[in-house]
């Protein structure tokens, strides 16, 4: 929360202006009943018409002033709220962009997105509300109270009584209804979840003839939701008339008590009417303040969520004495590398050493959780090694700027991920000035040229956000093409062939070998077929390299490799492989 509030600091002058303007507005607003009282006491009762005109004119002026102050206050409040939100949003975005994967993993992506969008929006609304209402209501309330006291101190207890009753009602509401509100939200979430589940399992539900069971599951939540909703709504239906009747009864009380005071010459009749209005102002302001108590904790939750993100400093930064490497060949060397995720007790990678040379293919195979993906994520410094070092052409990658390191690397993530824009835009992502020929060549190598050409606008076809208009396999091929267009020295494929069928997989690898013959290729895979022909295969288990060599060598020497191979290949293919 503190971190988030810091972003309001530059707007302190604005906020002071808001307070000042709202104060003036409240003062004007509050003086109107006093003038009305004057009209009655000094105008009507002694029948002095010119006095009435004169006072009326003053009141018109005050009314205008009142509105002017309000508009001014609104102006600065809006600028403050929108401005601070903009700054928070920017800071948040830039901080997350600087995150390394370690920091990113400590939040879910969905949660980060909500924080950067909804939560900031919440803050903006809360800020406007606070600046307008939370400041105005107390000023108004206190001002009205002071006026009421000045008008008739001995009547003030009536206001106190009204407030006491209102507090009682509020406290009751707070304990009876507020908890239900929370349940309400969780039931709505549950309802949403059930619907989402049923939609994604539509085919399964029907195949298992379990529609009835699904209806009943839905009905349970739907019924609960109805019950709670009825309770909450009924409480609310009771709340508002209660407030009205409290205010009305206070009015009567004031008139009754006031009558006695007027008769005993302790109160002027006009003052009694003014007092009535002040009392209303106090009560309404009080209601606003209590509403604030509901609003602000909600905004504070958002503020804290944003603060959590802003407080995290990215761990991977450029060294101050970073040296930009000159002409790169693309040799990657792991030297006794160990790696543990932050806060993890056990090492994910243990004592990894190998060299991937230009012009060769290094393949990494192993079960899930064996550390394959973690290993390659160290190369572009998505994480930093815990022990040991990784060198690019002999230079420790931590001693070079991240930019030049990543310029040398083409990375294809496991999940083909495209951005909004045309296919050409996406392919040019790593090299914005790539020519059409380069795009076509990369598309041909990645086996995407045929389906691109089949699309309505070819390379200019728009890819919807998240790439829903292309299939999983097509996305993977396009993200391979994207890396190829960039034309880096090192190409890393993180299980990037998994959504491809065997045929395409084979053709792609063949084309890749031809077009990227000079490059260092590092391929992570689950399928033996994909990596059989690599120059060097690393077999991983529990974060360690348990076997290395070519396919033939490993079949003879590595038990785990043999096991994997046997589960995937037929005897005949195994024979082929060995021969």
């Amino acid at each position, binding site marked *: 929360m503190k971190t988030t509030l810091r972003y309001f600091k530059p707007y302190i002058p604005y906020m002071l202006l808001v307070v000042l303007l709202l104060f003036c507005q409240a003062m004007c607003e509050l003086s109107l009943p006093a003038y009305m009282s004057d009209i009655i006491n000094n105008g009507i009762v002694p029948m002095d018409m010119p006095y009435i005109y004169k006072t009326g004119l003053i009141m018109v002026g005050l009314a205008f002033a009142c509105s002017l102050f309000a508009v001014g206050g609104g102006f600065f409040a809006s600028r403050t709220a*929108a401005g601070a939100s903009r700054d928070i949003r920017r800071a948040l975005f830039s901080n997350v962009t600087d995150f390394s994967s370690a920091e990113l993993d400590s939040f879910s992506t969905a949660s980060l997105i909500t924080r950067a969008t909804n939560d900031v929006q919440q803050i903006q609304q809360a800020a406007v509300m606070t600046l307008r209402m939370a400041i105005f209501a107390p000023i108004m309330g206190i001002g009205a109270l002071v006026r009421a006291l000045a008008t008739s101190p001995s009547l003030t207890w009536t206001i106190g009584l009204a407030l006491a009753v209102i507090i009682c009602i509020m406290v009751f509401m707070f304990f009876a209804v507020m908890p239900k509100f929370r349940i309400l939200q969780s039931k709505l979430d549950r309802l949403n979840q059930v619907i989402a589940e049923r939609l994604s399992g539509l085919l399964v539900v029907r*195949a298992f003839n379990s529609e009835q069971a699904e209806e009943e599951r839905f009905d349970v939540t739907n019924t609960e939701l*109805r019950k709670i909703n009825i309770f909450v709504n009924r409480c*609310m*239906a009771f709340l508002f008339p209660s407030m009205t009747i409290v205010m009305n009864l206070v009015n*009567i009380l004031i008139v009754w008590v006031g009558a006695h005071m007027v008769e005993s010459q302790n109160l002027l009749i006009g003052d009694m009417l003014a007092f009535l209005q002040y009392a209303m102002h106090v009560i309404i302001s009080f209601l606003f303040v209590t509403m604030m108590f509901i609003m602000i904790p909600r905004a504070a939750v958002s503020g804290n969520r944003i603060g959590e993100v802003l407080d995290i400093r990215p761990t991977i930064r450029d060294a101050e004495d970073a040296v930009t490497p000159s002409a790169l060949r693309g040799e990657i060397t792991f030297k006794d590398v160990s790696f543990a995720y932050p806060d993890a007790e056990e090492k994910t990678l243990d004592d990894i050493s190998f060299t991937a040379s230009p012009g060769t293919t290094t393949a990494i195979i192993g079960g899930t959780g064996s550390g394959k993906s973690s290993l390659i994520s160290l190369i572009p410094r998505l994480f930093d090694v815990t022990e040991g070092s990784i060198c690019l052409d002999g230079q420790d990658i931590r001693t070079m700027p991240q930019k030049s390191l990543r310029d040398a690397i083409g990375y294809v993530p496991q999940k083909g991920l495209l951005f909004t824009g045309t296919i050409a835009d996406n392919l040019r992502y790593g090299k914005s000035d790539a020519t059409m020929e380069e795009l076509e060549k990369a598309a041909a190598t990645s086996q995407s040229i045929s389906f691109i050409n089949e699309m309505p606008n070819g390379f200019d076809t728009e890819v919807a956000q998240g790439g829903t208009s292309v299939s999983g396999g097509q996305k993977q091929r396009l993200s391979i093409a994207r890396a190829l267009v960039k034309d880096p020295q090192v190409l890393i494929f993180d299980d990037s062939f998994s959504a491809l069928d065997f045929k395409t997989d084979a053709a792609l690898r063949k084309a890749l070998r031809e077009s990227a013959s000079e490059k260092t290729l590092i391929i992570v895979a689950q399928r033996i077929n994909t990596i059989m022909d690599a120059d060097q295969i690393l077999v991983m288990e529990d974060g360690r390299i348990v076997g290395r060599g070519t396919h033939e060598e490993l079949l003879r020497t590595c038990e785990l490799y043999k096991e994997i191979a046997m589960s995937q290949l037929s005897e005949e293919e195994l024979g082929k492989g060995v021969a």
Partner: protein
Amino acid sequence: MAARQQQTGKPKHGPGSRAAAMMPGEKAGDLRGTLRKLLSYLAPYKFRLFFVLLFAIASTIFAIVSPTILGTATDTIVQGLMSGQGVDYEALLQIIVFLIGLYAVSFGFSAAQGFIMAGMSQQITYEFRRLLSEKMDKLPVRYFDGMTHGEYQSRVINDIETVNQSLSQSLTQVITAAVTIIGTLIMMIRISLIMTVVALLVLPMSMVMIKLVVRRSQGHFKNQQKYLGEVNAHVEEMFTGHTVVKVFNKEEESQAEFDAMNDKLYESAWKSQFLSGIMMPATNLIGNLGYVLVCILGGYLAIAGRISIGNIQAFIQYVRSFNQPLQQVANAANLLQSTAAAAERIFEIIDEEEEEDAFEPQAGHTLGQGMAQESHEAAERTQRTAAADGGEAPAAKGRVEFEHINFGYKPDHTIIHDFSFVAEPGSRVAIVGPTGAGKTTIVKLLLRYYELNSGRILVDGTDITEYSRNDLREHFAMVLQDTWLFSGTMRENLKYGRPYATDEQMIEAAKAAHIHHFIKTLPDGYDTKINEDADNISQGQKQLLTIARAMLADNPILILDEATSSVDTRTERLIQQAMANLMEGRTSFIIAHRLSTIKDADTILVLDKGDIVEQGTHEELLEKGGAYAKLYNSQFEE
């Protein structure tokens, strides 16, 4: 993602209700038709609705009268003073008691109205949700091809919530407001016609003012929504693609793009915020001016002896309470539009044509009720014995025949041409082909998710269209690549296809699927909950669970979609063994990715671009040297 965004449940709030009301409202295509339909859903509640309206009006009327009475109280005091006789406390007390009575009655009506309305609106909301939920099971699968999940979800949650809000709050609010305006006017005229005219003179000013502000701010609100959407989209994209952004060195570019959008958002945000903020001072000014005018004119009339101080006081209260209902009524049109738009989206689904012989929910039949369970078990027993005895229903064997079938997702685009094929009971059919060849289409037709264009499919000699959908699907067990489990216990998930299976049967199935041991190691065993994202169990274990689920369902024809996704080698082996167990003695259709599966198949169907281009055994097809041979050889050419 879409689902997550929807989860807030409530409709999006603009900055404050006043601002929300200024938002350019959505419009329904057919306003009158939609409203008429909505009314027809209210018909069963017409008595309650009548009382709600009656009570709302009564409560308002009693509330409107009270300022005048309070004014008389003031006058009683003033008279007492002026006449020098002292205040007539007896008369004053009478007035006050009368007033308290009025307030109490008004309170009673108002609370009663809200009480009835809450029950009614929630019941209607509940009904709408239930209707949409049932509709989900009744619509043809085809319908969901044209609608995203997020959209359906949004209709069930957000649109219904919008209608709910209008029903439970806005409806009475608008009616109360209208009554207030009319009632207040009458009371004001009763006090003084001239003063009413003067007070009303400022109204047109107020209207013009509001109109001006609304017109100016609407554009900014639209922009704000637009830029907010852009910023959100960018954030979502960049955060999701964080790794890619980083390895491609695109941080600066992405930040620059963001800053530009963010600045635009700021501009429209503060302007719309500011303009909507002007509304209040503007109407306030009008209100205050009216107030001042009333004071002056009232003073003049009072001196002339034509009006009492109590009446001035009452009049001020009336003028003060005139603004708010006026705005509410002015908003009514907008509100009606957005309600109708939401309702229209709901009716769109409700009116959608259901598939023939659609699922009919049985009311009052709840799972887990002892009685129901017993009778169902009995029914199941008799059914099964009948089948075993070779009674009327012949035992399902699992013979599947495709006879000259033609099919296309779009009527003008046939993708399966004249396909014929017979799968004998217990045989294995592997469906292979490149990505996007439409391997799942065959499966979808078999389960009758879609209707054929021509030809027919026979299961155990009977055309699938002659079965009820329920009976047809009783023949099938399914294991899909997308391992769908719902958030319930292991037990509930396993028994999904056969809710009345015994625990012994369930455990047997779990053992055959090699998942029993794993479940036993969980803290709550079979009662362990699978959580929302099902991330407390691994992908491989999920697959084993779906296999066990299919095993327990124990149906003669099996549909299997082999996973391409990555699981570790050992789990992979377990899965293969489990699948082999499952296929034992069943006719199996396998969307195959593993060569071993393909080779073991009795028949291989080779698909390309939705066409079945070849069929035969592994050896036959290799010999043929066609598409299959090419597909097979491509992996080993060297």
